[in-house]
């Protein structure tokens, strides 16, 4: 029976069918729903780890007992987990080990574009690329077979459009999972230099065995059709190719690395002209050129952003040397206002960013909803680098001798992810930065996952809720203040005091994400237009519930959550709660 599943639901189903026993990951769009769905299945263990390195290592440890394990993350998460990846490639695995890594071409919800296939090349391990939900499930299962046959970690590369597209999937039953039993074998699992040198040779030998296997794998296939043009395609790009070049011969590479050279040669020899269509890096194209095979690729297919049928229609025209004009936007849709994502109405982060914007400070930010604090009118973020970077970059600016005060901002989940080591650095190295943890009791941006501070696990069990102030104290921070971000006057006062202090301090802004509680804080507010002098102060909050079309602002009572921040800052007291009128 076929079921409509997203790629991420299909990955979860595949992991369950493959008999996976342990799965660990860290939330990150577009990978998050894999573990959320997997945790609903029986007979396996799933967890949100504090970060991707931890998740990777948990899965690596589990696989050495002989059971099948999964780790999931987004592309930037693999940077964090790159350390264990590179050496697990040496020691190899016992039970099957697959890392599903989701790339985000077009940066729908990411700070950069990365092509995870480069990591497979870097570590000399296989990478599989499904192009729809059925393949997501099937390729993951095949990944475990490859992993166990060649004792190698395997990467399955997903992308946004594979992860979040629904398509039909045939399901099957679960393979019984192995029983955990670690077998002592230090020459295999301990890469001290003497043994690691032997492992290095084995990695190379395995690479050649994998190449031979990829040549014969059913994941790679030639679809012969018109031989004037042959297209090498993988992942979601394959689907677009089938729409845009329905007549062409296609070499579909589901197992693109190690490169199936023999298959590539056979295909190239059978067609008059060759084109490679792949998303992000010219990974296959460059290899073809190394092999001495002439092909088109980046000369006609864009390498920045994501591909689409529309983009490839332009590529096809370019390849055929004819002009192509995208349907022009009608005049009526030319001057439309943009609608960027914003902090939600009633978001607790708004109180902190509004207050920071009133001060002459530099703000180093982090990854999460609060990155939206960079948008005008709040405009209070100055930098973002990576998770945890909000803390450490503040310390770096401070040590460089920056004259203006620097305030670092992180979220609760990012604090646990990689903020703690940064805080330790500030305290150990006699820093004096002010750090704010926006503790909204959830991992909000990715859709409200639990984290070490929430008191709940991915599997729904209650657990210790790690207190941020206690962690900070243990790191050696002496000045720790907790504020309610909705009390703007107090927030301002605390900010001034802590910034002025000549020692490190941590401000915890504690208030739950309103999207999570799905409740209004109080009755909605309204603006009395007779009292309002249209000074625009309330608009400085950037609250989506306060609407203005050039005239006096009004409050959209459907979206107002009653947080009262606008009432607090209105200089003419024109704003009050509806039921008080």
């Amino acid at each position, binding site marked *: 029976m*076929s079921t*409509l599943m997203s790629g991420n639901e299909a990955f979860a189903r595949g992991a369950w069918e493959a008999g996976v026993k342990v799965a660990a990951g860290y939330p990150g*769009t*577009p990978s*998050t729903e894999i573990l959320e769905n997997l945790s609903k299945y029986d007979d396996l263990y799933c967890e949100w780890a504090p970060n991707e390195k931890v998740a990777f290592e948990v899965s690596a440890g589990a696989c050495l007992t002989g059971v099948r394990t999964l780790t999931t993350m987004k592309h930037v998460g693999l940077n964090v987990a790159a350390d264990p990846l590179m050496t697990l490639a040496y020691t190899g695995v016992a039970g099957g080990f697959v890392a599903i890594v989701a790339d985000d071409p077009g940066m*729908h*919800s990411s700070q950069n574009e990365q092509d995870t296939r480069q990591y497979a090349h870097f570590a000399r391990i296989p990478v599989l690329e499904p192009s*729809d939900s059925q393949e997501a499930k099937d390729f993951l299962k095949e990944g475990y077979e490859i992993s166990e046959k060649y004792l190698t970690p395997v990467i399955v590369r997903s992308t946004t*459009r594979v992860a*979040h*597209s*629904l*398509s*039909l999937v045939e399901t099957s039953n679960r393979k019984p999972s192995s029983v955990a039993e670690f077998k002592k074998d230090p020459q295999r699992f301990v890469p001290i230099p003497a043994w690691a040198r032997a492992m290095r040779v084995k990695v190379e030998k395995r690479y050649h065995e994998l190449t031979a296997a990829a040549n014969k794998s059913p994941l790679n296939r030639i679809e012969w059709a018109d031989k004037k043009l042959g297209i090498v395609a993988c992942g*979601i790009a394959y*689907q*677009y190719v*089938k*729409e845009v070049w329905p007549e062409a011969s296609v070499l579909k590479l589901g197992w693109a690395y190690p490169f199936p050279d023999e298959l590539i040669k056979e295909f190239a020899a059978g067609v008059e002209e060759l084109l490679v269509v792949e998303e992000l890096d010219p990974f296959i194209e460059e290899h073809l050129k190394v092999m001495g095979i002439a092909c088109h690729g980046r000369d006609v297919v864009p390498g920045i952003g994501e591909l*689409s*049928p*529309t983009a490839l*229609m332009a590529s096809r025209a370019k390849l055929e040397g004819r002009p192509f004009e*995208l*349907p*022009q*936007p*009608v005049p*009526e*849709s030319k*001057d*439309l*206002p*943009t*609608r*960027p*994502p*914003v*902090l*939600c109405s009633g978001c607790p982060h708004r109180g902190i960013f509004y207050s920071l914007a009133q001060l002459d400070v530099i703000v180093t930010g982090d990854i999460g*909803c609060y*990155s*939206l604090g960079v*948008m*005008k*009118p709040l405009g209070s973020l100055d930098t973002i680098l990576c998770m945890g970077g909000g803390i450490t970059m503040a310390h770096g600016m401070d040590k460089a001798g920056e004259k203006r005060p620097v305030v670092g901002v992180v979220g609760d989940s990012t604090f646990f992810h990689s903020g703690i080591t940064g805080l330790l650095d500030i305290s150990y190295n006699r820093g004096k930065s002010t750090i704010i943890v926006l503790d909204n009791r959830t991992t909000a*941006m*990715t*859709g409200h996952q639990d984290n070490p501070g929430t008191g709940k696990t991915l599997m729904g069990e209650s657990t210790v809720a790690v207190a941020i102030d206690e962690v900070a104290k243990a790191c050696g921070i002496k000045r720790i203040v907790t504020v309610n971000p909705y009390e703007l006057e107090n927030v301002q006062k605390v900010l001034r005091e802590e910034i002025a202090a000549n020692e490190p301090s941590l401000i915890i802004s504690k208030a739950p994400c309103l999207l999570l509680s799905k409740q209004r804080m109080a009755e909605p507010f309204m603006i009395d237009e007779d009292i309002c002098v249209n000074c625009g102060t309330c*608009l400085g909050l*950037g*609250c*989506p519930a*306060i*609407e*203005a*079309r*050039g005239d006096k*602002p009004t409050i*959209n009572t459907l979206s107002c959550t009653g947080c009262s921040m606008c009432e607090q800052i209105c200089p003419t007291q024109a704003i009050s709660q509806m039921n008080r009128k």
Partner: protein
Amino acid sequence: MVGVGGQGILLASAIIANAAMLSGYQVKTNEVHGMAQRGGSVSGQIRYGHEVHSPLVAVGTASVIGSLEHVEALRMAPFLAPNGLCVVNAQEVIPVTVSMGAAAYPEDTHERLTRVFSNLIEFDAAAIAAANGSVRAANVALLGAMSTGLDLTEEAWHEAIAKCVKPKFVDINLKVFAAGRDYKKA
């Protein structure tokens, strides 16, 4: 399906996909998660037929566009096929960019919609939803009107709604759907 984060675009997209599947078609959809959902423009794309490869709709090929918001309908205009149906909810959601004076919300969206879409249903989906039991079902009222431009059976729609919404809201949603579907006739 397009609109603003929080309007129920993803649920409506799931209903269309299921109705297509229950009608025996292959179906693929696409939607945006994560940051884009925070009050930004949200869209869900559905493609169905006897053979479907791409989950993304190419420009100029959509049979129907349903929008819960005026400006978002205009933004998506290039995707509609010639003579395709556009259904628009009579709602204007002012983006923060407009409130802070960095952009203007056009005053003449109704005129623009009429000029751009030759086959247009413009109606107050929220009012129809409210009149039939729940103001929150505006997305399903919109679906009802959209269904007049799609070759899927009424039974498939009903079954898809029953599958996608919580059991206690099925009856209300069926009623709202029927009212939306009948709007054009009325």
